[in-house]
């Protein structure tokens, strides 16, 4: 008789993963224990003897890591493979190697598509709603609180079921036919426009240098006090509006992406720069 994982067990396995994938994260097995727990009900159902169960559990508490929301596809694929193994159509070695091989791609897709693209875009839209008016600023937060978990849970479960149903071949097909690349680059375009707008709206930095003098006006024969003769910031903004925030943002990007500065180091550098600018502002009478 061929063995099959029941609907109920699959759901339980997904629940174990979805809620508790990050519980016991550490450097030795990363998400290994969580993966083991997620596989436990499946193993319990598929294998009869203690020895078989022990063998199966041991291969799933070993090192595993992924971006866990999108990575549920791996859980689905592994469930399918364990089922095949219980029916003698797969070997434990294949299961382990496939699992290991999937760590890289699923982490990369999850981090770049979901965490670094979908979340910021959704946050940006909700931020814009919150920012529109102080009295309705709660709305954006509430929208995010509802949309993000529901959407993610839905996608994560769909991926899990897809992995179980279509297996590794299914995932390879998706990755090979360019659909994923199409989706990713579309998201990237959307994200870039939005991030550009956010940079223009929220990053603020000015060059606080100005020359203030009392000016003698010959036509009316009066002394106009405190006239701003030169304002570095206005001059720069006349050339290209908000050029300094743009420059600072691209500078941070360069240091982070190309020079591998850590965020902490960048934060200290920004603080130092802020201190210099503030000092300059006081020295030239920009702040008082």
């Amino acid at each position, binding site marked *: 008789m061929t063995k099959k994982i029941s609907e109920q067990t699959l759901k339980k396995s997904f629940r174990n993963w979805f*809620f508790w*994938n990050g*519980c*016991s994260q*550490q*450097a030795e097995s990363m998400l*290994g*224990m969580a993966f*083991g*727990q997620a596989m*436990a*009900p499946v193993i319990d159902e598929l294998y009869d*003897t*203690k*020895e*078989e169960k*022990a063998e199966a*559990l041991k291969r*799933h*508490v070993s090192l595993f*890591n992924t971006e866990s*929301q999108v990575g549920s596809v791996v859980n689905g694929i592994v469930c399918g493979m364990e089922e095949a193994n219980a029916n003698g159509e797969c070997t434990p070695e294949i299961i382990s190697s496939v699992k290991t091989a999937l760590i890289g791609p699923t982490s990369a897709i999850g981090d770049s598509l979901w*965490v670094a*693209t979908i979340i910021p875009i959704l*946050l*940006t839209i909700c931020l814009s709603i919150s*920012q529109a008016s*102080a009295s309705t*600023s709660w709305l954006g*937060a509430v929208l*995010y*609180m509802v949309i*993000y*978990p529901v959407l993610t849970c839905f996608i*994560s479960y769909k991926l899990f079921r897809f992995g179980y149903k279509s297996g590794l071949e299914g995932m390879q097909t998706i990755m090979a036919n360019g659909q994923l690349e*199409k989706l990713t680059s*579309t998201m990237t*375009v959307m994200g*870039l*426009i*939005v*991030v*550009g*707008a*956010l*940079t223009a709206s*929220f990053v*603020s*930095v000015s060059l606080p240098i100005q020359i203030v003098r009392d000016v003698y006006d010959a036509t009316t024969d009066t002394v106009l006090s405190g006239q701003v003769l030169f304002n570095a910031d206005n001059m720069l903004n006349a050339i290209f509006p*908000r050029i300094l*925030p*743009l420059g600072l*943002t691209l500078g*941070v*990007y360069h240091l*982070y992406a190309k020079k591998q500065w850590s*965020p902490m180091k*960048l*934060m200290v550098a920004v603080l130092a720069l*802020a201190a210099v600018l503030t000092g300059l502002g006081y020295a030239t009478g920009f702040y008082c």
Partner: protein
Amino acid sequence: MSTFQIFLIALFIYLGSIGSIVGNTIGWYTLGRPLVASFVVGLIMGDVPAAMAIGIPLQIMYMGNVTPGGAVAWDLSYATYIGTAAALALGKGLGTTEIIGLAVVFAGIGGLVGQLMWNVSYALNLPLNRLANKYAEAGETRKMYIPNVVGGQIIGFLCRFIPAIIVLTSLTLASGQGDFASLIPGWITTLLGVFGGMMAALGMGIILSFLLKKRYHIVIFLAGFILVTYFGLNTMAVAVVAVITAVLYFMAYDKVKVEA
């Protein structure tokens, strides 16, 4: 902050951190985001609009916070709950930009404590592997939740909740020491304001590192930028333009590929 408020905020700091009992989707990626966290703090402290005014710039600044492979750059949950609560408790009488600057500083302090506690929990979780392996060797499928959920949660809760209580209590004691706003010299509040505005570049710069994959991508970023500076659109309007552009790009993608 009252004892009850401190308790609630500390509880949410734990819930919003990585690996809490509600899962990372609801916890870290939702309750832990500054936009949501500031809303929760606003509810607890009874001033949602003021809390949101702090949360929005914090969200921008931490927008680039992605956690690849468990490398936590800042503990967002710690950073924003503490940053917002501190700015609300200590910032009475300060202007908006200075309050934001204050929030940025306390978020930095909170984030550091959080990162430290993350590393502690990361280390404390290691021995749980022994337990997991023991149960695995014995084939105890029904006990696999013990190392992961029970063990992981006890360590996670202790590492988040207790330090949060300590930090929040000291904040409350400090705010009781008198009018905090009048104690800060003027140049510090100016510096805080400048720093707060510049920190937004950090979030944007880091998120760009994930999005700029090809050289010409910088032009798309600039398009979004000038829609605000030259065309005077607000971010919501640009978001709509972005969605439209994305749809057109998606439709044209295959054609361009075939021709090229």
